[in-house]
């Protein structure tokens, strides 16, 4: 009897294993030669995300001025979850900073109104969905001498070169002043947008190569969080991936450090090359829900 039970347990375990393996190796693509069809899986960022705020504003996914991204959209908290979700789902459409999206080979970037979000197209303004990367500091308190030095570096030739290297449009494309290390020491805390975070990491690495005695704490907790942190004195510099709101401008001074596009992204197996701004809008409003209605 005991043997029988063990045997059946082993059989059950084996069959579970087989089912599991079958699932992970089976095809991921929609294997439809006539192209993408079926339900559109809309993926959005969470409410309060700077990327979402800028996307909604520029594409005008609003009703009566309110963010009206369909409630049926999967909410991906954070840029990395967004990328993984789109990379894993053949039906998906999402959006992310071009700096991230263009370097991630797991997803495909769509053209908008026939324009790809290249550096050139963002500089000449033909790519529609672009936004500023902003850093902010408390107006009344100003920047500490050390933070001021870091900001000087960002706007120097070296700093703006880092911006261009990462795939963003520098705020000062040419003729930025040379930066000379100040020899200051101390800690700078930077917090905010998860989209600006990776650029800020590279800026801080480049800065610390010239000022090895400075520690820069960069956190990417989200635009809203960064602003709150700066207001509460927990951060020297706030990072934002959208323009500051009026209520925020009452206590924050903004500085634009770069321009970033928002790329509309799909699974690599998706055969659609581009969408119009209007189509993007209708998809995210939930008014178009089938891929065949796009084609």
């Amino acid at each position, binding site marked *: *009897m*005991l043997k029988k*039970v*063990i045997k059946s*347990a082993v059989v059950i375990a084996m069959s579970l294993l087989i089912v*599991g393996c079958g*699932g*992970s190796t*089976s*095809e*991921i693509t929609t294997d439809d030669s006539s192209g993408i069809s079926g*339900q559109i*899986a809309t993926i959005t960022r*969470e*409410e*309060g*995300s700077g990327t979402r705020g800028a996307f909604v504003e520029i594409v005008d996914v609003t009703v009566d*001025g*309110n*963010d009206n991204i369909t*409630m*049926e*959209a*999967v*909410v*991906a*908290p954070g840029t990395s*979850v967004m990328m*993984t*979700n789109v990379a*894993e*789902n053949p*039906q*998906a459409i999402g959006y992310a900073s071009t700096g991230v999206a263009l370097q991630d080979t797991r997803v495909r970037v769509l053209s908008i109104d026939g324009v790809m979000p290249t550096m050139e197209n963002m500089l000449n303004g033909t790519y529609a969905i672009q936004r500023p990367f902003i850093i902010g500091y408390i107006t009344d308190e100003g920047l500490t001498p050390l933070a001021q030095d870091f900001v000087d570096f960002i706007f120097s030739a070296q700093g703006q070169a880092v911006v261009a290297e990462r795939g963003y449009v520098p705020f000062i494309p040419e003729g930025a002043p040379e930066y000379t290390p100040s020899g200051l020491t101390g800690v700078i805390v930077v917090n905010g947008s998860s989209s600006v975070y990776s650029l800020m990491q590279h800026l801080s690495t480049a800065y610390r190569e010239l000022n090895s005695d400075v520690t820069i704490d960069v956190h990417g*907790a*989200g*635009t*809203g*969080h960064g602003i*709150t942190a700066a207001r509460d004195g927990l951060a020297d510099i706030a990072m934002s991936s959208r323009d500051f709101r009026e209520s925020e401008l009452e206590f924050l001074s903004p500085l634009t450090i770069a321009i970033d596009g928002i790329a509309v992204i799909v699974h690599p197996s998706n055969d659609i090359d581009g969408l119009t701004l209007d189509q993007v809008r209708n998809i995210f409003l939930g008014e178009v829900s089938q891929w065949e209605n796009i084609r």
Partner: protein
Amino acid sequence: MGKHSLVFYKELAAKILFILSASAAIIAVGLICVFLFMQGLPAMWDMGVIRFLTGTDWRPTWNPPAFGILPMIVGSIYVTVGAILFGVPIGIFAAVFMAKFCPAPIYKILKPAINLLAGIPSVVYGYFGMVVLVPFVRQTFGGSGNSILTASILLGMMILPTIITISESAIRAIPGEIYEGAIALGASHENASYRVVLPAAKSGVMASVILGIGRAVGETMAVRMVAGNQAVLRMPHEFLMGTRTLTANVVIELGYAYGNHRAALVATGVVLFIFVMIINALFSLLKKKEGI
């Protein structure tokens, strides 16, 4: 020197040390209670308790905003019930197997494996869910894959170690005479194990289930990575659609929220806290009744 010996002071110091350690836990719970209720209850009152608890619209950034957490309450209940459906039968059978049927060599592998399962951080479960379970559910059942079902399966896996470990000890704690008595009366090994020993251990098994439920309700990181997080009121047959749990609601938006929105999230925390308190009260009731 005073009239007390060195031993007396050593005793006293040890006493104070133990009292402080013991009260640290109580103070922590007390502080959390006070903070949560002081911030959350007034906000809930201002928004209208009934409207807050039964509202189906969650539009925190709208003008005017809408704060209704019914979709999240229901979402939390769905994924918890789902986790019980997946986790409890497997967990209890595994516990009986380990206590009564498992040959020693297999036990040597199984036991550490289950302990390891308990130690895996929830973000790792979440990533596993995102790249394995979500595509699996999408290909097998359709939908986007970010669904109540996916979250239930993942949570079912996550509560397994709790259920198995506690149920197994409960079964092992049943005196051998009970099992032997059943055998002596002619029951087979299986009959004695399932019909006599397992029912005798039912209070411990129930306790394991309740602790598992507690873990499922409170789980945050893994759930928000696979559940889709749509704040939409779902019906039970829509288990292939996404949902948002109370925990996910708090953690996704807390970083951005200020003003009323923040207060509404703290109030969400209060509701979650009350949920967990009810579960713990059930646990203590059971304990008192059965004397575990």
